[in-house]
Structures are given as structure tokens and as C-alpha cells.
């Protein structure tokens, strides 16, 4: 993914670390790096979150807008993901460099959110055939230290948890024109059930073992890697993201590893989201600047 030259000796060092279940930053094979999350960071967005896994830093803002449902899905809303890889994050993204990666991530998110069991678009419908909400999920990569898929999917989940859609008090059809009345009270709003929202997990194969949450160095050492989307204990996507191949049995290991890790991660995430919300309400968090 990112160009970061490693010598053969360094690669072997990482490989041996993975074999001994003691990676070069002290983690075991199924450990994540420390994460940080913060919701409601952007006042002008209806839902926002900032999420860091170590130095991978993602900022997500969601804006709901009103649209007309597509004719073949009259009672569904819409969701659109837009990933921006700025050159600040990695010099490789300069010019059009980040475009390919951005469209890959966008597609992967779109696929994971496509099943109605993972994300119910029907709740975004206002008036079937005439009006629906369209969620624009804008994702900004501020810094990149590997494992972008995971960081982005977690950030999106946090932002969707934080999202507040204005409540429509009445929607009337008046001779083909739609009359929408939104609630006057700004605190009167609808929220999305974030519990079943899928998260993506990158699994890298280094040597004979699979690891989660690879750093840039580990991404460079891996022979093949795959992204798995998990919602609850079901799988929503599997996609290989690098050019290598792996043994048929590895696929089973890979699925087992992600299911157990994602379940644990999801629990922790929801818990800290709730905790963070309570703290925000009681104004316990003192901020000295936007990013700190």
C-alpha cells in the first residue's frame, strides 16, 4: 500500500516476530494498537467522529440531505461514502496517487453496508417514491500508519452512532409536490441503531500466520491480505486486497480470527461510545484545540 522500503533483514525480523507471537511493537498476533475516539467534533456536520488507531487518524463527517429515491428502490434511502486521501497523510497520495486506494475503500464500505441486515436503508425513507434521506459520509484521512480499512470503518460507525437526523413531523403529498415539515426543536431528532453496523477488519498473512491490525511495515512484509466485514456474528464482505495468494485452509483461519476479534472489538467500541456520550453531556471533557 504505502511505499516504505524495508531491507531483507528487517523483513525477516518482522516475520520471526510474528512466528513467535511477539510482534515488533510488543503485540501478539491478534492484538490491536491503542485506539482513540471522539464524537461530535464538527459542529457543522450532523454526525461526526475522529478515530485513531495508533497514528492512523481518520476524520468523518456526515451530512443528511433530501433526495428522491431511485425508481427501482422506492422505499429506501441512500448512503454515499466519499474517501479523500490527502497528500498530508502519505506522500504517495500526492496528485492522483491516492485515487485508486480511495475508490477501493469506498467500494469496500459500499459493499459492507449493502445488506439490509447490516444497515437498514428503509429507515431513511421519508415518503416512498418521493422523498428520502441521503447520507453523505465524507471521510478524511489525516494521517496514515497502516490499517486504513479498519480505522475508516470504525470511524464511520462512530459517526453514524453520533448522527442526528432532523425529525420530519409531517410529509404530505399535495398534487405531486411534497410538503415536508421538520421539527422546530433542534434536539428533536432521529438516530440510527449502530449496534449491528458492520466493521471491516484487515487480516495480513505473514509467514504461516494471520495477524490483525498490521502496521505499514507489516503490510509490506505480508504475502497476501484480505479485508473481512463483520456484523454481529455474521460476515458481510470478504475481499482480498493484495496480489498474493494463500492456501485454501488459510481462508477458514482467517474467518475464525476475524469473527472472534471483531466481536470483542465491537463490544468495546459500543461501550466506549456510550461512555463518551455521557461524558460529553456532563461536559467533563476539556478541549484545548480541535485536534487535541
Amino acid at each position, binding site marked *: 500500500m504505502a511505499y516504505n522500503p524495508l531491507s531483507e533483514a528487517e523483513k525477516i525480523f518482522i516475520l520471526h516476530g510474528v512466528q513467535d507471537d511477539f510482534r515488533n511493537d510488543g503485540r501478539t498476533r491478534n492484538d490491536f494498537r491503542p485506539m482513540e475516539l471522539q464524537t461530535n467534533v464538527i459542529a457543522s456536520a450532523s454526525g461526526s467522529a475522529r478515530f485513531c488507531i495508533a497514528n492512523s487518524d481518520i476524520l468523518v463527517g456526515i451530512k443528511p440531505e433530501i433526495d428522491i429515491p431511485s*425508481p427501482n428502490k422506492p422505499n429506501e434511502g441512500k448512503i454515499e461514502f466519499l474517501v479523500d486521501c490527502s497528500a498530508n497523510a502519505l506522500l504517495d497520495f500526492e496528485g492522483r496517487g491516492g485515487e485508486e486506494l480511495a475508490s477501493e475503500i469506498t467500494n469496500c464500505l459500499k459493499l459492507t453496508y449493502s*445488506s439490509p441486515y447490516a444497515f437498514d436503508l428503509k429507515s431513511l425513507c421519508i415518503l416512498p417514491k418521493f422523498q428520502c434521506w441521503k447520507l453523505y459520509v465524507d471521510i478524511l484521512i489525516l494521517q496514515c500508519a497502516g490499517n486504513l480499512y479498519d480505522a475508516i470503518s470504525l470511524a464511520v460507525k462512530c459517526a453514524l452512532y453520533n448522527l442526528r437526523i432532523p425529525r420530519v413531523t409531517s410529509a404530505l403529498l399535495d398534487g405531486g409536490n411534497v410538503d415536508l415539515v421538520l421539527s422546530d426543536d433542534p434536539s428533536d431528532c432521529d438516530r440510527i441503531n449502530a449496534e449491528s453496523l458492520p466493521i471491516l477488519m484487515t487480516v495480513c498473512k505473514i509467514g504461516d500466520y494471520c495477524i490483525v491490525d498490521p502496521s505499514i511495515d507489516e503490510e509490506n512484509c505480508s504475502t497476501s491480505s484480505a479485508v473481512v466485514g463483520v456484523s454481529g456474528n455474521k460476515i458481510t464482505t470478504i475481499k482480498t486486497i493484495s496480489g498474493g495468494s494463500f492456501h485454501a485452509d488459510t481462508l477458514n483461519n482467517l474467518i475464525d480470527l476475524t469473527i472472534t476479534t471483531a466481536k470483542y472489538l465491537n463490544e468495546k467500541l459500543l461501550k466506549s461510545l456510550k461512555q463518551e456520550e455521557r461524558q460529553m453531556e456532563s461536559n467533563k471533557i476539556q478541549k484545548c484545540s480541535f485536534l487535541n
Partner: protein
Amino acid sequence: MPFDTKRINGPDNTFSYRQFIDADKDEKNKKEFTGKRNDNRELLDHRKIAVQLNAITKAKGSCYIENGNTKIICGVFELREIAKSSRYNDKGQLYCDFKYAPFSRETRKSVTENEEKSLAMSIKLALESLVCLHEFPNYQIDVFIMVLEDDGAVLSTAVMAAGMAFVDASISCFDIITSSTIAFIDGIMVVDPTSEEEDIANSTNPPENHGTITISSLNSMDQISQVIFNGFIEPQLLKDAKKQLLEINKVHEIYLKKVVSMKIIKEHRET
């Protein structure tokens, strides 16, 4: 894509007439899917595949493949040196271009450019573990794939087409790549789905445990070069599907090997 203003592109906002009959048809489809398929196949049966090598005379290697009604043509062109301005690569690079013909599906141009790009990327990744790229340092190989008709399992058919085009171009490969697709409808495995079955598996009201999975594999070394799954499913079902797909891929391999040996025999006779 740049617009050709001199040409009549048709009105901007037309829509397919099919949406007016769909409501009725959709219901019918769902009722019909009780384990029996429209083309009288068993659930685990694959459609018949036909492969023709050297279908494009101007290309270095090419392949036309039919999988039931799915028709794909693929060409591999001469190696090109990568321009000096970009970074030196000690491995060869693949460039993959994937396009649907505008008339290939029920509704005209129903696939967005973004989806085409994403499929192109998936095919490229699958091929990267097939072609001996270390033999072509700093060279680029172009692969062009065109879907003439889409009746389901496009990705897996395209991967096989591209793989065979490489064989036809006599570019060294590690193995023969084979690929197949399974759709899940309510937890039931449907091998090599038609586009109708794919639509049911990924419709707006799918039954639980739905989705489609495509696996491309290099069988002689038991390697999987690409997996794509999209849907919502229990892990155990996926593992079962993997087993089934690898079995099917082995059957494909027998046929593809036969095609290759026919090519070699033919060339041998000509010289």
C-alpha cells in the same frame, strides 16, 4: 468519461420501462425460487463453458468465453516498457481494463464506472498471483476485458477469460487460473447463479443468509488467489461454499487444460 457532444446521447433522464412490470415479476421470482431453477439445473450444477482462444487476431493473446449466456471477450496486448518518469519496478505491472457493453444487461448502462473499476481491480489482483511478473521487470502488460452479455457470474468468468488469454499470449504463468461463483438464497447454495438468481440474492428484501461469493484458485498448489464475498451470512456456510467452489474449480481446470493442449497440438502441426 468525456462526452461526445456531436453525437446524440439520448435524453438525460430516461428510465427503463421494466420497472413498471417489475413489481409483478419480482413476486413471481421469489415464489418460484423453491429449489428449482429456471434452466432446469440442479442447485449444485454449473453451466456449460466454452472457450475459444485467439479470438482477436490483432492481440498477442485473446480468449472468448461463454458460460451459459454470459459472454466475455478478453485480449492481452504486447508488453510495454514503463515510462522512465515513474518509479522503477523490479516486477512487471498489470493494467486491467474492464467494461460492460452498454447493452449487456437488462437495463442499459446499469453498471456505474466505479463498479467497473472495482471489478477491474479485483481481476488485476487475481491475475497478479498467476502471471510470473518477476520475468518482466519494469514492463507493463495490458489486459482488456469486455462483457458482451451478462447473465450472472461475470467476475469468475472474466478471471478465467483473462487467465486463458495470458496462456494464449504465451506469457509464462504459474498455473491455470480457475474461478467460480456461488449465490446464497436463504442459506441455500446456488452454484453459478444467473443474473436473475444474483438479483434475488442481493435484492432489497433478501432472505436471511444471502450473498454471493467468488473464489479464484490455482489448483496445483491449492492456492486461493482471490476471494470476494458480499452479503450477510454465517461463517460456517462460507466455509462450506469454499469447499464446493474449490471442487468446481478443479473440474474447470480439466477442461481448460484440454483447451491448452489442443492449442499446442495445433501449433505443433502448423510448424
